[in-house]
Structures are given as C-alpha cells and as structure tokens.
C-alpha cells in the first residue's frame, strides 16, 4: 500500500537547522554531565607484535591522573566475533595505531600529557601490508547481503571476449579514502552500578547497544545510548569501532564518573575505518554495432586480520548493462592494517569509477557517443536476477542530463578545445544504487485528544535531515499535518531501529512508521474514530515487502562534468557538474538536493583529491591531517546542478522512495575522469587524478 503525498514533496526547512546554527543543538561531547573525566588513548607504535612491557609509573604519578588503563587492568570482554572491538584483552598488537591503553584524568590536557609518559616495550614482528594481484591468499569475501552475491557468472566470457571485434581490457585503481566528518567520533561513557549510559555520535544507537551488551555480557536494557545529533558520519559511524569500547573500559575503572573521549583528527585515520583501495580489472567486448557481448569485472582489496570487510566494488556491474556473457569476481587479502568499513556508496563509488571509465573507453573504441553507447546497452530486465525493474530510468536520466548540460553537438575528439591556456573537456557516467531495506525497525505512535502524534523510533539523523523528512513521512502516513508530528529519534529508549546506512533510512524507518500508522487507524476505528481521553499507543515492526521477490529495485542517475586542465601545468578544475537522478519520490526537495549535491562534491573530491597515503614500511597512513589529506575546498567546486526526474514506483515501499544518500557520489569520479580524457587525451585510470599525471614534459 502506498501513502498519499501531502507533506512529502514539500521543501520544508530543517526543524533542527536553527538550533544547529545557534549552537543550541547538543552533540555528544557537549552533553552536560557532572564531574567529567577525560580519556586520552595510548596507541601501538608497531604494526604487529606483542607488548613486552608497559611502565605506567610516571603517568600514574602525574597530578590529576585518575586511572591508567592497559590490558592488565581492563575488564575481560566476551569473545565476540568482531576482532576490531576486542581491544586490551591481551598483549598482542594487530596494527599500528591500535588502542593499547589510555589515561583517564581530570583534564584532557593532563590525560594527553600523561599518555606520553607511558613507556611501552614491544617485541615487533614483521608485517604484511602489500596488496597485489597474484597473492596466494586472496579469498572470496563472506556475503554480507546474500541477495548480492560476491561472484557472478553467466555465459562464456572468455570465448566472447576472444571473438569480440572491439575489446577494452584495463586496470583501474582507487585510493584509500578516509571519511573525516567534521565532528570526530566522540563519546561520554558512564558506568553506574550495573549499567552504562553513553552519549555518542553514531549512525545507529541500537548497533552500539548490541555491541556493548555483547562485549560486557549485559542485558541490552542495561546499556542506554543517546545520540540526538551527529556532525557527519559517511559510514564511519555505522559500525561500532574501538573508540566506544575504550571509553567503556575506561568508564568501568571509574564508576559514576562520566568519561569523555573525542578522537583527534590524526586518530580518525586509523580507528574508525576507511574506504579500502581497490585494484579493478575491467574487460569489455562489443560487436560491430556497439552492443556489449562480454563484460568481466574483477576487484581485489585489502581487509584487516581482525575483522573482514569487503568494498563490494563489482556489485553494481550486473545491474547496469545487458551483456550476455558476464563475470564479476571479488577477492580480499587480509593484511596487518586497520579494519576498513563502509564509506558513502560502499562498492558502487569505487566500482562505478572503473566500469564507467571502461564504458567511456569502449564507446570511443566503437566510435559511438558515450550516451548513445550506454543507451544501446541498457538492460531491460535485471541481467543477473532476471527480474523486471520496479522502475528503471537510467536512459531518461541520461537524456534529460544531456539536454540540460548541452551535450548535443559535442565533438568527441580529445585534446582540441583550448581557452586561455586551459584544455576543456566534458564527460558523462552512469550512476546506480540499490534500494536497500535493513531489517529490525519498529515504531511507536502515541496520540492524545489534542491530536498531537508522538512518533518514537531509535533512528539517526547524521546531518542529512532525518528529523524533518521522517516527520513528513509520518504526517502522510497518518494523514495529518506535519505540525502535528512530534518525532523522537536517536535514543535506545525508543523502539529499535536499523542503522542509518546504505540509503536505507527512509525506506526502513518510514515503512515501520507507515505500518504503525495503519495500526493506529485500526485502533481509532475501534474507538469510533475519536481519540479516547487517555490517548492511544501502538507499536509496529517494519513489514516484509512482498514485491521484493518480483522486482529488482534500484535508483539510477547520470553524472556530467566539464573540466579544464592547464595545458602546461596539469592542474584540473571542474567548472561544472550536473547530475540527474531517478530516486523514486523525493520526500524533501531541500534536504534531498543537499544530499545529492554533497555526494557529487564528495565524488569530485574522490576524483581529484582524496588519498590516504599508506607507508608500507610503518604500516600506517602518513597523511594524517586535513592539511595533507586533501578534500575538495570550496574553490575546487564549480557550479553544481542537481535534478531529478519524477518517478512513481509503487513497489519499493509505501513512500515510493529509493534513498538519496549514496547515489550522488556514484559515477561522479568517472564523469570527471572521462572529461579529463576528453580535454587532454590522457586517460587517468588511477585515482586521484593529480596534476603530475597530466603534466607535459618540460
């Protein structure tokens, strides 16, 4: 059943906007607590080995130090599977920078200084951090979402490639990227008697609650997690990381005193995950008419030895194009490195850089316009699942984008347009992201005789506008005005919610709220349509979607870019980006536009700037601050246009939404790389596209 949009589709200002700009919205670290203590971590100075000795004498003697935490006095935690969280349980060191202790003190300055007084002796072991093809231990990742298998195959790819009249066979690499939200990971942890209370910055309070409860073998009711506002996350706050565990271990040492812990920017590069680098080989074969006959996409990536994570770079490939012979392969090498994690459009952001660069190369090899080439190979049914799409508007996005961008009449010849010393080029790439629903969300709705509706769900707003958009969904689900909705999120005191992630928030939480609204209507009907004096309350879980087995559900988009490349110096400037997206119903045009625009900007950043440089000698990132880890500055971002086409999809969920958080970044880097090729004739297959890769000889 779908709901009628009245509040949905209106560009409502963020409800929390004014409070945020006035500084009144309290983030985790700003929550008022009594007599706080401050934690500063001790981190491993070797990549692998064991701690031979720790001397905490000088640190303990420092005035103001309350406790020094090491594996020797840390609470024994349960042997849960996620090794990233099992810190301070032995003398082992698994990666350089790993938390091996900490100091709790009356001020953050004392804590940090005292950590520098702790003497640690290590027995170092050789480390293994080299990602390369041909490693004997490359393995198939476990499937996180079985609906998207890690490896797919159909037909005879090798034979089709061998006989194809036009072939592309190239290897593309993407860089190690770190999320770096403006608010680092922060926690206030308090242990009182037999329970924890956490204020922290997270994409999912229930995920933190479950992890802490499992580690400390507590009932979930004894772990309260509160996270009303989050200053950005991008996936780094989706899974619990070791920072939460270190704060909890410290809190156990100082009962009844809140322990405040904020990561430094430098620590953000080793503690909270990252988008792993990828090496991707794409092989395409086409017939003389520009139709793909074969498509092979293989990716290798690192993960850590503590916890497996796969950036599923090949996931989008079987969704995109109709090639009768197809193969995707995903392989991992477990190395002595920190554990990677999801980062905005995990899989698609990396994979579609490779696939959409290769598609551009193939269009050129076939002598076809890259838009026409994509249209010729558009899939009518899902190539892997064989299902019809609930809606698929890739071609509409490409055509609408071409019209708005001014694509018609483009001369495909590279390297011939020049203005004032700058070479000019344009590029296009496709985008896609699946419509994901995460299980486990429930919502409670209360209504009183005043016809105000309180909607409770432990959802997260990571800065994207959930407070506002979910209120709009609730209003339409209940058939009332948005002013009548009082939404409560970000607290485990409310009904359980799935994590914010994979653009699944509105789909998952919204579906639960719609279900609760239906139940409330039933209850109201039982009361003759009037709210009883003591009000009504219902709770419902997100229902199954019967259409899932009948339709493939994906959002699509088209990314365009115009770049200028300095002919002598190689600097790249992106003058224009234009994206057209088919993302189902747009709940709030204002916040949705910001999300898509933010994704496209992050894609520009991925294309030109972002790279955590890993020094294999020390097994650590050496660009550990925002002076050396570059993200796009304002001056790097040109005109960014965001559009969407009207798309009415009755199958995805009651709201008709597909999610907007991820798809803005997908394909953006390929569009820019393709434009750089058009400008210069140089094909850069290794991100980021830095000026030395385009610099002519002296």
């Amino acid at each position: 059943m779908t709901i009628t949009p009245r509040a949905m589709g209106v560009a409502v200002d963020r409800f929390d906007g004014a409070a945020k700009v006035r500084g009144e919205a309290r983030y985790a670290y700003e929550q008022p607590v009594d007599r706080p203590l401050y934690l500063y971590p001790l981190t491993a100075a070797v990549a692998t080995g064991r701690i031979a000795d720790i001397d905490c004498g000088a640190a303990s003697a420092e005035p103001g130090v309350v406790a020094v935490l090491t594996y020797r006095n840390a609470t024994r935690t349960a042997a849960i599977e996620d090794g990233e969280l099992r810190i301070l349980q032995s003398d082992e060191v698994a990666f350089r920078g790993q938390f091996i202790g900490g100091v709790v003190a009356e001020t953050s300055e004392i804590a940090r200084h005292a950590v520098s007084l702790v003497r640690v002796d290590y027995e170092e072991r050789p480390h293994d951090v080299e990602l390369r093809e041909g490693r004997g231990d490359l393995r198939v990742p476990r499937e996180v979402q079985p609906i998207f298998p890690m490896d797919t195959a159909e037909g005879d790819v090798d034979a089709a490639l061998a006989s194809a009249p036009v072939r592309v066979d190239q290897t593309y690499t993407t860089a190690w990227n770190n999320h770096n939200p403006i608010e680092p990971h922060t926690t206030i942890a308090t242990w009182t008697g037999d329970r924890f209370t956490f204020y922290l910055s997270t994409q999912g309070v229930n995920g933190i609650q479950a992890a802490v409860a499992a580690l400390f073998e507590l009932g979930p009711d004894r772990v309260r997690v509160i996270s009303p506002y989050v200053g950005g996350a991008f996936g780094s706050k989706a899974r619990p990381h070791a920072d939460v565990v270190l704060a909890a271990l410290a809190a156990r040492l100082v009962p009844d005193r809140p322990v405040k812990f904020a990561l430094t920017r430098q620590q953000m590069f080793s503690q909270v995950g990252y988008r792993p680098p990828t090496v991707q080989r794409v092989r395409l074969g086409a017939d003389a008419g520009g139709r793909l006959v074969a498509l092979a996409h293989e990716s290798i990536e690192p993960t850590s030895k503590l916890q497996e994570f796969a950036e599923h770079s090949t996931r989008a490939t079987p969704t995109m194009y109709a090639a009768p012979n197809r193969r995707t392969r995903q392989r991992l090498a477990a190395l002595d490195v920190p554990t990677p994690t999801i980062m905005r459009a995990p899989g698609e952001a990396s994979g579609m850089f490779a696939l959409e660069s290769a598609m551009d190369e193939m269009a050129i090899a076939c002598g076809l316009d890259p838009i026409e080439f994509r249209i010729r190979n558009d899939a009518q049914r899902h190539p892997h699942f064989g299902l019809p799409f609930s809606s698929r508007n890739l071609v509409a996005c490409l055509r609408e984008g071409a019209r708005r961008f001014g694509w018609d009449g483009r001369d495909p010849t590279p390297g011939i347009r020049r203005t004032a010393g700058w070479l000019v080029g344009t590029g296009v790439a496709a985008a896609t992201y699946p419509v994901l629903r995460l299980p486990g969300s429930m919502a409670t709705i209360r209504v009183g005789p005043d016809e105000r509706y309180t909607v409770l769900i432990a959802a997260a707003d990571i800065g994207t506008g959930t407070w506002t958009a979910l209120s709009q969904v609730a209003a339409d689900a209940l058939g009332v005005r948005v002013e009548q909705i009082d939404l409560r999120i970000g607290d485990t005191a409310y009904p359980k919610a799935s994590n914010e992630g994979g653009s699944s928030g509105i789909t998952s939480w919204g579906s639960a709220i719609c279900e609760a609204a239906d139940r409330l209507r039933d209850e109201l009907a039982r009361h003759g349509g009037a709210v009883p004096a003591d009000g009504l309350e219902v709770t419902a879980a997100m229902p199954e979607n019967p259409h899932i087995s009948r339709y493939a559900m994906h959002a699509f988009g088209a990314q365009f870019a115009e770049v200028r490349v300095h002919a002598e110096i190689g600097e790249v400037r992106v003058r224009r980006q234009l994206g057209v997206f088919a993302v189902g119903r747009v709940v709030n045009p204002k916040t949705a536009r910001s999300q898509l625009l933010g994704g496209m900007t992050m894609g520009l950043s991925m294309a030109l700037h972002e790279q955590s440089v890993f020094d294999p000698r020390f097994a650590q990132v050496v660009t550990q601050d925002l002076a050396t880890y570059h993200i796009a500055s304002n001056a790097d971002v040109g005109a960014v246009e965001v559009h969407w086409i009207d798309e009415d999809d009755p199958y995805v969920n009651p709201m008709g939404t597909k999610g907007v958080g991820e798809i803005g970044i997908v394909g953006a880097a390929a569009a820019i790389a393709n434009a750089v090729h058009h400008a210069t004739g140089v094909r850069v297959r290794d991100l980021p596209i830095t000026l030395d890769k385009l610099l002519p000889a002296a």
Partner: protein
Amino acid sequence: MKPFAYVKPVDIGAAVAAGAAPGAKFLGGGTNLVDLMREGIEQPDTVVDVTGLPLSAVDDLPNGGLRIGALVRNSDLAADRRVRARYPVLSQALLSGASGQLRNMATVGGNLLQRTRCPYFYDEASACNKRDPGSGCDALDGFNRSCAILGVSDDCIAAHPSDMCVALTALDAVVEVTGTGGTRRIPLTELHRLPGQTPHIETDLAPGDLITAVELPTATGNSAYRKVRDRASYAFALVSVAAGLQIENGAVTDIRLALGGVAPKPWRARQAEQLLAGGPADEAAFRRAAQAELASAAVRPGNAFKVALATNTIVATLRELSNEGTRR
C-alpha cells in the same frame, strides 16, 4: 602537550631576555607552533608571547621602500594598499597561503620561521634528522611528494613551506633582528640555511634573537606569484614562482625569480636570473633559464615531477609577466 610556562613581555628587551633562556620559544600567531606543540614536535619549557610588543606597523621608508613590523598579520599585510600597488607578488603570495582564518592570526615574523610540512617531521615515530638529529630520514624512501629537489642533502629533503618568504626573497627583503648583542640586519636570502648535515639548524638566529621587522627596497617592475598545488585553495605549494620582470626594447632589464616548494629554504633562482639578465624576453630564453636552474635538481621517485612542473611554471609565469609588460 608538555606543560610549559607562559610569559608575555611588553618591551623588546624583556622579550629578548626571556627568549634567550634555554628551552624558550617565541609565540606569534601560534598557527604553526601550537600545532607542533600539540603533536609533541616542539616541547618548549617557556612560551614567550610577543604579541604585546609594538611591532604591528607598516611604514614607508624614505627611499621608497617599506618597513613591515614583525607582528603584522598576514591578512593585514596582504590588504595593505601600498603592498598591493607596489609589491603585488607579496600580496598574491600571502593570499595564496593557508586559509582566511589562519592568515588573520599568522604574523610576518612567525611566517619567516614556519617549519616544514614533511609528514615524517610531524610523525614522532619515524626517523627525522630535523626533529631528532642523527636518527635518519624516512622521507628519502617514503612519501616525498611534497619534498624538495634543490639544495637538499642526504640527511634531509624537507621543503620550506612558506609562500610569503618566496615573494620576500624575490623582493630582496632584509630582516631586522634584535638579540642579546643588539640589533642587526640580515638579507632574507641569508636567514635560512640549507640542511647539509645539520638540518635541525634552520636559520642563523641565536637564542633570544627576535625578528622585529622586514624591510623591502623600492619596488621595481611588475611582479606576480604563481602557486601550483594539489587543490585550488588551502594547500602547500608543490611548486611556486615569485617573479619580477622589467623589459625594455625586448631585453630583460630587471629580473627577480624565486621558487617555493622545491627547496629547504625560499629559493632565489640566481642561475636563471643571470641567464636572463640583459637577454631577450622570449619563450626560448625563459625555458633555457628555467632548465638551467633545475639542472642541479636531486629528485626522488615521488617528487621527480617537480622538475618539469617547476620549469613549466617558471616559463608560464615569465611569459604572463612579459605579456603584461607588452600590453602596457
């Protein structure tokens, strides 16, 4: 951060005396020192805050030059009408550095003593002869994209990060220093040392030596600053070029050329200047001069591109200046 004492003297004599004490460091805008203290790279016992001293004026000199107090903030100097009109290279260099917030804090004196951004200098766990003399240099075989190619040694390839200093070097600036033995004047080209075997000794300043002013001689010709970096704003130079050029009848009558991002100190390109002086102001001459200046480059795999980048940027900058001169 190691605990430290903080003093804020109100006259230069007291500041010099406080600064001469062992373990003392002068604090200007704090945009570099405080970062380094947080990371444990600098560990002063005493921080001598000099921002209370009367060194914030920009004054005309009788000879047509300019005297810039050591405490003038970067933003203020960049916006100064005399600087913008007479020394555009300096204004442009200042505005290309850091961010608006940092420029509002950073002082001229502090910027002259800005320390390298080599990542291994910042990482206490790695070897760095500048931070820990005799420990080695992990930049040689590490991530050295930002590192220097001219004037380097086997002990250090760290690049000097300042933009302002490159412009001041091209302008023949003179630094006024007051120390325990009185006041003296040092040409900026002689303030910084090349690393040799002692990369931890970066200048000729002695303990207690306080930079009080920078003096610029009369401006000559038109000038420009071209900074090349990995993003459009808020990044250190991979290569920068400060140039002043005067042409009469097609011949170069005055040339000043300095390079940033390629050397351990602001690099005055004397060889290129000598080749260009009195000769033709054309593309071939610019390129020959640039190639000659870069001929002694000692590159590592990660920064070898800087030879072509510096050469092309010198040529482009001089061409632009010569075109401007012709248009006038």
